[in-house]
Each structure stands twice: as C-alpha cells, then as structure tokens.
C-alpha cells in the first residue's frame, strides 16, 4: 500500500505550510492566505441585505397559510389597511394579473407536470407557510401587527404528507393532473443479466429525511425603483440567474433591473432560488413607488425557505461471491413538495449518475419518480442529489461486505477504479478524469488507526461492553463543478454552466477582477486574488475582486454545485492570460522587438536575453496614456473570458468515522473522524480545510441530528432552532483532515470542487459506523437522524442478541432481500 500511497502527493499539513513569509509575487497559489473578506466581517462593517436602508423605505410582512391544503374562500384586508402606519395591504387576488408563476428551470422530462406557482396564493394553498396576504407599513412592527387584522376564510382540503400515500389511487390531489410530477429513467448495460443468477443480491431501502438548510443569515429583500429602473437587493447565491428569471417572471425588462447580492450569510443551496418574496417585493415597489424591505424571521424561514433531501431510496446490488459488483439498480421516490421551484426536479438527477460511486460494474438502472405532497417544495441543499446517491451506495456496499463476511474496506478495494485506470468512463457514462482512491484510503487508514480500532471493537464485543464501538467507511466521489453546458442541455436544464470573468488593469497598475461567481462565505475575493497575482505577477494586495452586483458584474452563472473555482476561477485565469497577451504585444511595440522575443516572468515583459523590459504596471499606464500604441491596438490591457468546462469535476476521498454507541441509552458519540480528500490542486489550503470541515459538519448533522418533521395534517413541527437541531460546537468532534493531490486534467489549474465534498462523504461514514457497532445485535439499519431513541429502538426491535463474535454471526438477520 505504501507504493500506492506515494502515487498520490500527500499534501503537507496546513500548519507546516501556511506560506507566510514567502515572497509576495509569483507564489500565491497554494498559500494559506488569510482572507481579505474577514476585515469587514470581524468588525461588523458588513452589508447584509437587512442592513440596507433607503429613504422612504417601507416594510413588508406576509400572512401565511396555517393549513397545508385548503381552498381560499375570502381574503379581507380592509381592517388592516386602516391601522396606523399601514400604507397598503393586499391579498393574492390583488396580484393575480401581474405576479406570473415562479419559475422551474429544469423540466427533466418531456411530460413533466409543472403546476402554476403564483408567488401569492390566489385560490388554493398547498403548504403551511404559503403567502396569502401582505401588509406594507412604515416599520416592521406595524406591518407584523397589522397581519392580525386580516381575515382569511379557508375551506380545508385533505393534506398529503407521505410520498407513498400521495401515489395511491384515492390520494388527495395536490394539483389537478395528479401527484406524479415525472418519472425519469436511465439505464446502461444489461441489468437483468447482472441480477439474473447473481450469487449475492443486496436489496435495501433508505430514507433520506427532509432537511432545512438553515443558512445563518435569514433571507431578506430590498426593492426600489425610480419609476423606470428597478434595484433588488437580495440575500441570494444567484444574482445573475435571479435577474434573468425575475425579468421573465415579472415582465420588468432585464436591462432595467439590477440585482445586488451584498454580503450574504451562507446559502448551502437554499439561496439558489427565485422566491415569492423577491417577486412580490418588486411588484410592491412598482405599485407603491417607494422602497420596500422584507426580512424573514427564522421560524418563517424554516417554513418557507426551500427544504432539502426527502427521498425514499431503494437500491439493489448484484455481486459475485468474491464481492465484485455486477450491477446496481436504483428506484427513487423524490418528494417535490407542493410545487416545482427553480431546480426542484433536477436535484435527484444530479445524483442519478453517482449511485455507482467509485466502483466498476457492467450494468446500471435508475428510475426516479417526483412526487407532489402538501409540504414546502424541496430544492438544492449542499450536495443536491449526490449526498443521497453516495449514502445509498456506501451503505449498501457495507451491507454487501457484511453479507460476505468481508472487511468493508476490502470490498471497496475489490471494486474501485485503480489509479492506473484513469481516465475512466463509468457505467453511467461519466469520464472520471483523475483520482487515486488507493492513496487517499491508505492515508486515511493510517491516520485513523483502523486496525487498532477494529481490535478494540472485537474486544468490546467479546466482553459485551454496553458501549459498543463501530467503524464507518465512506469512499466517495462526486460530480461537481457545474457544468458543461452541452451536458446540462442534454438533461433539459434551462441554462448553461459557463462562467465569466473580466480582468481590468487600472492606470496605476492595480487590478480589478470582475467575477460572475457570487460568494457567500467561500472566500473568492482571496482565492481569485491569488490566482490573478500569480498569473499577472502582481502583488496579492494589488488585486480587488468585484462580484454580486449585476451592474458591476454583468455576466455570470453564480455560485452552487462546487463550481466557483473549477469554472469561475479558471475563467479568471483565462482572462489573465488574455491580458498578458495584450501586454506582450504592447511591450514588443515599446521595446521595438518581436512579440515572440518577449519573455514574461514575475510581472515583467523582457526582450529575450536582455535586461530591457517593462513591468505590467508600466504597460498598463502606457495603454492608458495611449500615446504610443501599435497600429490598431485599442487603449486597454483589459480582457474578459467566458469558460465553459468540457467535463465535470470529480473530487474524491476516504472518510472514516468511529462511533461509540451506548446500547443501553442509544446515545451515539463520535470518537474520531478522519477525512482524506483529494480535491486536486489547491489554491488556498486554509479555505479548503474550512470547506471540508463545514461540509463534514452538515453531513454529520444529517446523520445524527436534523430532520424537518411534519404531522399528519402537514404542519411543520420543527419551525424554530429550538426544534430543528443545528449542531453546536459541543455536539461535534474535532476532525482530522488531510489531503492527497491528484490534479484534475480537465482544467489548467488542476483544481476540483470542494464545497460539497464533506457533506457528501460524511453522512454514510457516520451511519455505517453506528450500524457496524450494532451488527452483533442484528441491527442492519438505523433511520436518520440516528437519535438515541431511534438507536435504542433499533436495538430493542432487532432479532438477535449480542453475539460474542463478528458480523457473520448475524447473517440470518440480514436475510430480507439478502443472500440467495
């Protein structure tokens, strides 16, 4: 294994390689630069959307449906209108002519049902929290008070909360055409042959619980108009996409609409949306001629920020007796909620190609049915489709290992793509450009002390310790860096996946980088500065990165799907190269040499073999003065680039988790967690570590803590942070993280996405560990989140008693759909 270990370049620890003290120019990429963003964030000088104050601004509050499903009989806002400070109050019917329908940009099949989705309900409500009326007042408290004076009569209709029930013949219809939104199929190879006479078949069903993304900053919107042009501040991840979609939805011409994403306090996919509140704020400012602001409370947000996950996954693996996988079948139900929002139906498709994981197989079959229920719509949440896929395959591979009495790492080793086999085209048709699963796994096992923990596990089993130890393995890859436009087109997505950058050389030699990415915590201002500093040979400090305002950054596809660096960062590099080409041409002219004889290094263009040259800053001034330019040379060095990737990005890694399970109380404690990720070349190791840590935390939270719970009537029971458990520092362990570096071959920086990797990898590592601890009891699954009660019940209801030896003893308990 040590040879394989060497095949991947083991990253140096950040502590040993923080890069501080190195010369500033030419060595930026790879340095743990402290972030430029931090100065305003640690001093409270931020511009969150709710901080924006405009003269004459009014405040909006929304009245929301208390019922999951009802017909609206009457909305009477007349009493509210008379209250002090109230400027206006409206029901849905007041917007009926102009509010349009909230967009779905991903009609995944030809025959998909895309219901009308009015921003404010007019005739029917389909989830608790749907807006039915609003008040506009001179302050936020008067607006909220006046909501109580609005009368709404509802005729209750039957709610349908469960997907399986929603598909039943006599289920209440969420929309007239029925509750099946679409069925999407994908198959490769002969899956029937793979399963026919297969020596081993694993057949399992997993529940991906509904999650609430919970960015720390609640949503907020400020809209204003001068009568002709409109400005919308929004706590959004997608100012560019939002502008296009709002123009299409409201009819405000795109060139008269400016969208600004100021400082945005996290997103995790939840702010990848075109929301009812954004549309209605624009309509209100148009109608009233005054700026309006809406800021949600957390409990309002838990109801009405789109939710994540909520899938029912049936996965089957056909395998040989030696553990080699023949094929995989997946049948998925995906809860859409009440409407299809921006990419709601596309989320499960982002996982459709990942159920094969890192493994070789000959056949694959995937079916997904999107189901309407009377709940808040689902949409992208960190990982979007890929955490679900990774969870299912990594859980099922553990079951296969158990079935065969093999170590879970060994089963993976027998199936994974080896590092010599890259680039490798998977059964799903994806071409993984690079990777080294052996190296990452070897490093992770070493850091984890795998054999020692297994020995301790055996010892605890032997003496029937009430606190059992489990070891969970997750060897993941994911497709990210969204995305090649032609692939998105073939999947019927409504837009492309390119990214734009402009690099401007200012007369004084300073540099402005305009990016179409829209950071909300990721640190693009720092990382893009590092890329630019190296490319142009300018000091890191001389680069300023502009983003998040469509009047400044006119073109972009924004930030989601771990795309910013691998698409947007590459666009920055490409624009820098074009700047350098222009500078070279100008240098050749000034130095009276051929452009071919001009060499560039450390920010200077020199005639080959001489000391004669000009710095890029001198050339920027020369271009600005424009006194002596080559014929036909426009007076600028500035350049722009739009980069469309040829392929996705495929980060990978091995996560190992040790969990102590108290079999008497059901309490699970993570004892150690090791993550070795390979995200290709690294621009800033500090930022990468932060992304990995935060990702793991969210994945662990799905495994152990978080669940959006509804009652049978469709009421959300977890509307506050007191009910929906976001982990605190005391709920999480320290993480041991390291990296291997196998550069991507699909982009010139060699980089892979990192934003979602930790979340994708960690959930199955934790649950595998819990189940592993409880194998001797006959436990074969614990539904997430693995709360003490669920774990305790799983033990209490399991068929086997504690066994003194390993997993093979419990084989009889795993027979359902198991060995043939």
């Amino acid at each position, binding site marked *: 294994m040590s040879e394989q270990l060497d095949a991947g370049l083991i990253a140096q620890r950040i502590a040993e390689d923080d890069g*501080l003290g190195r010369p500033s120019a030419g060595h930026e990429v790879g340095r743990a*630069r*402290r*972030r*430029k*963003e*931090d*100065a*305003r*964030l*640690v*001093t*409270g*000088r*931020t511009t*969150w959307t*709710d*901080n924006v*104050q405009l003269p004459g601004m009014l405040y909006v509050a929304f009245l929301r449906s208390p019922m999951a499903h009802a017909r609206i009989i009457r909305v009477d806002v007349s009493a509210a209108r008379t209250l002090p400070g109230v400027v206006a109050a409206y029901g849905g019917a007041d917007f009926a002519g102009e509010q349009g329908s909230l967009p779905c940009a991903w009609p995944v099949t030809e025959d998909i049902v895309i219901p009308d989705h009015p921003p404010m309900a007019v005739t029917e409500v389909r989830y608790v929290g749907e807006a039915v009326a609003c008040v506009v007042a001179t*302050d*936020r*408290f008067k607006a909220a008070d006046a909501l109580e004076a609005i009368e709404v009569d509802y005729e209750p209709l039957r709610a349908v909360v469960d997907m399986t029930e929603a598909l039943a013949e006599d289920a209440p219809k969420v929309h007239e055409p029925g509750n099946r939104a679409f069925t999407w199929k994908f198959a490769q190879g002969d899956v029937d042959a793979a399963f026919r006479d297969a020596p081993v078949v694993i057949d399992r069903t997993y529940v991906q619980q509904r999650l609430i993304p*919970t*960015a*720390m*900053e*609640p949503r907020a919107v400020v809209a204003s108009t001068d009568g002709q042009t409109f400005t919308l501040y929004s706590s959004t991840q997608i100012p560019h996409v939002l502008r296009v979609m709002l123009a299409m939805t409201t009819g405000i011409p795109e060139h008269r609409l400016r969208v600004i994403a100021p*400082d*945005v*306090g*996290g997103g995790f996919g939840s702010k990848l949306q075109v929301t009812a509140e954004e549309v209605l704020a624009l309509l209100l400012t148009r109608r009233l001629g005054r700026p309006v602001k809406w800021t949600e*409370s*957390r*409990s309002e947000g838990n109801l009405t920020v789109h939710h994540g996950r909520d899938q029912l996954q049936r996965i089957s693996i056909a395998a040989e007796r030696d553990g080699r996988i023949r094929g995989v079948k997946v049948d998925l139900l995906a809860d859409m909620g009440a409407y299809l929002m921006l990419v709601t139906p596309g989320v499960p498709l982002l996982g459709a190609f990942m159920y094969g994981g890192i493994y070789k197989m000959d056949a694959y079959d995937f079916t997904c049915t999107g189901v309407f229920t009377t709940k808040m719509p689902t949409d992208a949440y960190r990982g979007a489709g890929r955490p679900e896929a990774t969870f299912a395959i990594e859980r099922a591979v553990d079951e296969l290992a158990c079935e065969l009495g093999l170590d879970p790492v060994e089963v993976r080793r027998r199936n994974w793509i080896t590092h010599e086999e890259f680039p490798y085209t998977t059964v799903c048709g994806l071409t993984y450009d690079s990777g080294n699963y052996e190296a990452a796994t070897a490093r992770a096992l070493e850091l984890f002390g795998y054999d020692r923990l297994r020995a301790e596990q055996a010892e605890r089993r032997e003496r029937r310790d009430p606190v059992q130890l489990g070891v969970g393995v997750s060897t993941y890859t994911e497709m990210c860096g969204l995305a090649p436009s032609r692939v998105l087109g073939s999947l019927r997505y409504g837009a492309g996946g390119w990214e734009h950058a402009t690099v401007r050389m200012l007369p004084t030699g300073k540099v402005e980088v305009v990016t179409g990415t829209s950071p909300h*915590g990721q*640190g693009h201002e720092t990382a893009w500065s590092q890329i630019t500093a190296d490319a142009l040979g300018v000091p*890191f*400090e001389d680069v300023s990165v502009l983003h998040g305002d469509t009047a400044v950054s006119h073109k972009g596809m924004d930030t989601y799907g771990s795309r910013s660096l691998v698409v947007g960062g590459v666009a920055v590099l490409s624009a820098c190269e074009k700047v350098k080409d222009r500078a070279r041409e100008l240098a050749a002219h000034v130095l009276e040499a051929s452009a071919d004889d001009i060499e560039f290094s450390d920010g200077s263009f020199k005639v080959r073999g001489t000391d004669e040259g000009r710095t890029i800053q001198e050339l920027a001034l020369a271009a600005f003065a424009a006194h002596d330019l080559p014929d036909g040379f426009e007076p600028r060095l500035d350049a722009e680039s739009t980069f469309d990737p040829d392929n996705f990005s495929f980060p990978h890694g091995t996560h190992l988790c040790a969990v102590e399970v108290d079999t008497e109380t059901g309490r699970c404690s993570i004892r150690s967690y090791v993550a070795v990720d390979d995200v290709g070349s690294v621009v800033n190791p*500090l*930022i990468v*570590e*932060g992304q990995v*840590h*935060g*990702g*793991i*935390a*969210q994945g662990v939270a799905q495994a152990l803590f978080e669940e959006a719970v509804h009652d049978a009537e469709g009421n959300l029971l977890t509307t*506050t*942070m*007191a009910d929906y458990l*976001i982990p*605190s*520092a*005391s*709920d*999480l362990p*320290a*993480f041991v993280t390291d990296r291997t570096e196998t550069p991507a071959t699909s982009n010139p920086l060699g980089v892979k996405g990192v934003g979602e990797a*930790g979340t994708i990898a960690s959930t199955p590592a934790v649950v595998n560990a819990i189940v592993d601890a409880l194998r001797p009891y006959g436990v074969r699954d614990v539904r997430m989140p693995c709360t003490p009660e669920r774990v305790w019940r799983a033990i209490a209801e399991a068929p086997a008693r504690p066994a003194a030896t390993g997993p093979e003893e419990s084989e009889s308990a795993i027979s359902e759909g198991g060995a043939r």
Partner: protein
Amino acid sequence: MPRITVGVDGVTYEEEVEPRLLLVHLLRDRLGKTGTPIGCDTGNCGACTVMLDGRSAKSCCVLAVQADGSEVVTIEGLARGQEWHPMQTAFHTEHGLQCGYCTPGMIMAAIDLVRDDPDPSEEAVREGLEGNLCRCTGYATIVRAVRRGAREMARGETGARTPPETGPPPETEAQSGAGARNGAEARNGAEARTP
C-alpha cells in the same frame, strides 16, 4: 413610551421606546448599529450577542427598557481605532469564519468565556460556546481561534490590526505589555483579571 438612556460603544443615547422593543432592534433599527445581526427568533443562535455591562448577552433576549442605564459594547466597538481586539485577530488568523454572520456574536461570547476561563481547553470552548451556532465552519477553526485569542488576551495584547491584504503572520504578531490589556478590558467593560 418609556424613555431610556443607554451607552453603546462609547456613545450615550436617549431614546423613547415601546416596552416590547428588543435590544437588538434598538441597536439595529434605531441606532444603526447593524454590525450585530439577527439569526433566529428563539434565543438559540447567539448571532446577536453583545456585552451588556461587561457580560455577554443575547440582545434578542433583552428588552431595550431592560438596558436602561447600561453600557453595551457591540462588535463595532471592540476595535480601538485601527487596532483589532485580539479575539478579532485570532478569528482572522485561524479562519474561524466563512460567511461571517455568526462571527460578531461568536467573538463577543468568546471574549466573555475567556474572562471566566483565561486558558480554556478545547472542551471548555466547545461547551462554553454551545449557545452560539455556526453553519459554515464545523467549529474546529472557531475553537482554535478562541484558544489563540485567549492566549493573546492573556499576554495583554491589544491585537494589532494588520491589514488583511497581508494577513497577520501569527508568529510575528506584536507583543505588548500589560498596560494594553487593561485598556482592552476597559473597552470590553470587563474587570481587570490576573491570568
């Protein structure tokens, strides 16, 4: 309406407030102190934590009238001129923030924690900050930041503000004498303590 007098970051304000007005809304909506954000409505997240007469308090759980006669220090009042508080510098150095929304409250809570435990263990930091939620970092870098900040506070540093463009090299951060510590603590409204 009740009339209150409250000091915020060294400025005295006299305001007429509704009895129901929360301190955080007084700060944000009336006084323009928007450095203190709001992350929830149940007192769980801690984003709005400020110093109220020298101890940390969630300003969404305090009525403005309860702050009558009090001194409030927010994240905006922590730095002295261009010099950051050591805890601010430590969060920057250790990458203890990403989106930064929880950061003002996290820093204020951390300073209060260090007041009670000048050299907190990892476990003490994790337990001590459980009332402040972060969704980005996974907390490990926050723990590192708080422990670094504690060490720097104990050394009596004022945390020289280094321009973020260069980033403060941790090993070369300026050391300063005990006098600065007293200054820092006075600004925090904290009593002088012997580490």
